[in-house]
């Protein structure tokens, strides 16, 4: 079983108040030197069958129409290689 990861992030120009709240909390917790935090979503998809170009194209379509709202969000699709796997 192969895993495909879809990362969804708010577009850079969109205000992210949750990320800002996290960033503001950091110095209080003793974590210095972080000037900005953006919070996003990560989807881990367990794919049945081979992760070939056709499967990836379908997943991109899924991300474009459903997992992300491309009016406000960008997404990245990548195949997650299991640790220690030989290609």
């Amino acid at each position, binding site marked *: 079983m192969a895993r495909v990861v879809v990362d969804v992030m708010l577009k850079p120009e969109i*205000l992210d108040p949750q990320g800002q709240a996290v960033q503001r909390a950091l110095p209080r917790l003793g974590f210095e030197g972080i000037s900005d935090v953006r919070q996003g979503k990560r989807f881990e998809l367990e794919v049945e069958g081979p992760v070939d170009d056709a499967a990836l194209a379908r997943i991109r379509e899924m991300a474009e129409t459903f997992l992300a709202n491309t*009016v*406000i969000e960008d997404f990245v699709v990548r195949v997650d290689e299991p640790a220690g796997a030989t290609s």
Partner: protein
Amino acid sequence: MSARVGVITFPGTLDDRDTQRAVRLAGAEAVPLWHKDKDLKQVDAVVLPGGFSYGDYLRAGAISRFSPIMETVIEQAKAGLPVLGICNGFQVLTETHLLPGAMLQNNHLQFICREQKLRVENADTAWTVDYEQGQEIHVPLKNMDGRYVADERTLAELEAEGRVAFRYLDVNPNGSLNDIAGITNAAGNVVGLMPHPEHAVEPLIGAGGTDGLGFFTSILKKLVNA
């Protein structure tokens, strides 16, 4: 014959009963519609009420947007069926792209519940003809994801074409761009807003009294004169 206004119930919808009541108080027949049906039961207009359909999972309105009934709503809205989205219904309409832009979490990260003053900026839509252009109304507002955003070009287009239908007055409660509380499509049949006119239809309740009733009398007037 009275006009028939459909009110859709999704799993997690809260305000369907209040919306049906508002439709009846305006003098129309309220027709309950179920998200799993494709059939709109030959209604003359549709309201997508407020609530938290599918628990706002993924994004507010994102899952409801793909429910069977929305396929029919999208198709018929493009053909001119009047559709009003209130709160979660507005979120669903932006997810369908029947209305441009998107809704995000309030900029202050808190749920908001207040009497909100609005200005009716477009009294020519199917849902606003009973208001005066520029009329100020009080309507309850209650939401978590009420921040309207759109890219600069879309915003400029909305402003230039008079498609900002409602604007927040006195306070911008959620960080919406240009104080936008609601918008309309170019044809004026699809309207969405965050505040809840269906909660302001009786004199007994709230500061606005019956300020919200105009949405429902507007559509009735539009349908009866059609």
